[in-house]
């Protein structure tokens, strides 16, 4: 494993058949995480079927403790909490995955171009990336909501737009390091076309890392969605877990002592974020077993991962 010129940690992915399979199954954490995610995905897909009641039907005027009919009780508006939770899974997972995809596409493309082309283009792209790493995310989100309206699509795009930068840096570092490798240089010296080098060598080395990073991004995005709902910028016509947490605060669940409204959505988010995190971490560990520390750094601080500051060989 080598350090890229700017010091991001990079990995060496042996190009073997079955890398994809190994990525998914090679690590117990990954398997556990992906299974948990799969369960939630299933719940989300089956939401209309398994929700005990229609989501927009009120059953009472306010909070109501759990009963057999309403296993998680009713919230401040008289809506069934379990139904909202299950439908919320749809929204949260949808937002999470698409936002992560948007981030991956933007970040991956920019990182790729910067790393591959190098030179001036790299410089300019990295300056732009730096800005996005540094800007406080809140104003971007609030302005976007105010200007473009608060719809689900906009939210997904906004999250991707705000969080793509760390992916870009990571991919760029990886691309650059791959191009530096001796055997790639040899292949190029032998006259292979850039396209050949690209598809046979660069892409296979970069893709697994991109995948791992995207899974981690899903965790980020779901987290960010709760944040957006918290600011009141979410789509008002859909239920999401972030919305449920915010409703708990707004509807005075604390004052009313309605724990059945407060606990479920937060637990759900925690579990999904956990699952995605350990899955992504597991994948990164598969790619480089020596990378033990520093995964958590990817999320909270949208700043450059330091020169292997958190790597301890």
């Amino acid at each position, binding site marked *: 494993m080598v350090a890229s010129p700017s010091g991001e940690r990079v990995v060496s992915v042996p190009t073997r058949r079955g890398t994809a399979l190994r990525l998914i199954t090679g690590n117990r954490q990954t398997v556990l995480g992906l299974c948990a995610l799969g369960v939630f995905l299933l719940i989300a897909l089956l939401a209309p079927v398994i929700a005990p009641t229609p989501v927009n039907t009120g059953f009472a005027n306010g909070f109501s403790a759990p009963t057999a009919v309403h296993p998680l009780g009713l919230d401040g508006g008289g809506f069934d909490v379990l139904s909202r939770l299950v439908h919320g899974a749809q929204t949260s997972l949808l937002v999470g995955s698409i936002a992560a995809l948007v981030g991956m596409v933007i970040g991956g493309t920019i990182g790729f171009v910067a790393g591959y082309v190098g030179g001036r283009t790299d410089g300019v792209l990295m300056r732009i990336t730096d800005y996005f790493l540094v800007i406080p995310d809140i104003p971007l989100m609030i302005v976007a909501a105010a200007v473009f309206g608060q719809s689900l699509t906009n939210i997904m795009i906004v999250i991707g737009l705000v969080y793509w930068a760390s992916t870009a840096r990571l991919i760029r570092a990886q691309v650059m390091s791959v191009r530096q490798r001796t055997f790639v240089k040899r292949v190029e010296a032998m006259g292979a076309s850039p396209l050949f080098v690209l598809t046979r060598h660069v892409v296979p080395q970069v893709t697994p890392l991109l995948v791992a990073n995207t899974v981690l991004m899903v965790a980020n995005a779901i987290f960010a969605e709760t944040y957006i709902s918290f600011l009141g910028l979410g789509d008002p016509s859909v239920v999401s877990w972030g919305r449920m947490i915010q409703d708990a605060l707004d509807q005075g669940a604390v004052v009313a002592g309605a724990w059945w409204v407060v606990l479920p959505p937060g637990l759900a988010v925690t579990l999904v974020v956990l699952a995605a995190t350990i899955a992504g971490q597991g994948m990164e560990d598969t790619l480089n077993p*020596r990378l033990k520390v520093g995964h958590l750094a990817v999320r909270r601080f949208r700043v450059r991962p330091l020169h292997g500051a958190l790597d301890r060989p």
Partner: protein
Amino acid sequence: MTPALSRIWFALVTVFVAATINFFLFRVMPGNAVSALRCRACTPQLREALLNRYGLDAPLPEQFVRYLDQLARGDLGISIASGRPVWQEITGPLLNTLPMLIAGTLIALVLGVISGVVSSWRRGTVLDSTTQWTSLAFYAMPTQWIGLLVLFYVAAAIGLPAAGIQSASLGVLGEPSMWDLLVDRTAHLILPALTLGLGSYGQYAIIMRSAMLDTLGEDYILTARAKGLRDWEILRYHAFGNALLPMVTMVALSAGSIVAGAIVVEDVFSYPGIGFAAVDAIGKRDYPVLQGIFLLLTVAVVVANLVADLVYVRIDPRIRSGRVAVG
């Protein structure tokens, strides 16, 4: 240019670009500070007069030039909502937020150290897994949810104030004593700080555990044990030292998340800090204050990055100039 200087230069450029973009960003939003005064007797003339006073009716590029000019003189402008200088509007909330953030970081550090030590000392056992999973779980929880839980279960149980920064009756009939003020302020910042600390201790736990495991595996530890040094001393003198560097780095990086943590926690606990001030200024379209706050935050993040970078480069000789084989 040495690497250090070039980083400083890039940092300055980033700040400038950020400040510029922030200027234009808020003005894209519908409505301005004066446009929708639903006040009892507002007239179109009043609105025009106010727009003129605040220079909001000038074309945008002209406003921008005026802004840059003021900035160069160190003047952040005047708040539209209150008429006071922007720096005055900002320092108050900032001084409210900082102790809470520091306390929160301290709590996170303490929890992280305990968690890391426990899980590495009893590596491979159930205690190890439990501790690790717990710290990861807290890290995965939305901060406002942690705040709600703290409000729910801790506030009433312990009898700590759940909101605000100062008790309503303090200082009403006379200047409160320094001690009373201190006690009251501290009581009010405990719950928000606890929320922040719980939500972020996970990263310190991981660093601590890793540092501990590395240290415990070193040869000289065996020697130390053989010499009769007790576990506790090994911990203090060796493991902590190895964890110091990444911990300090992480704390520096935490500065970058002032906004996220502050806004969330301050809303849940009604804490009048910088996050709250930012959200408030957005609602009022108070552009000068908004620009000031976000300039401040951008600078804070950039400086934190820079400091972490430079400190790290200096302390660890192995990665000077960034050219090193890691692993």
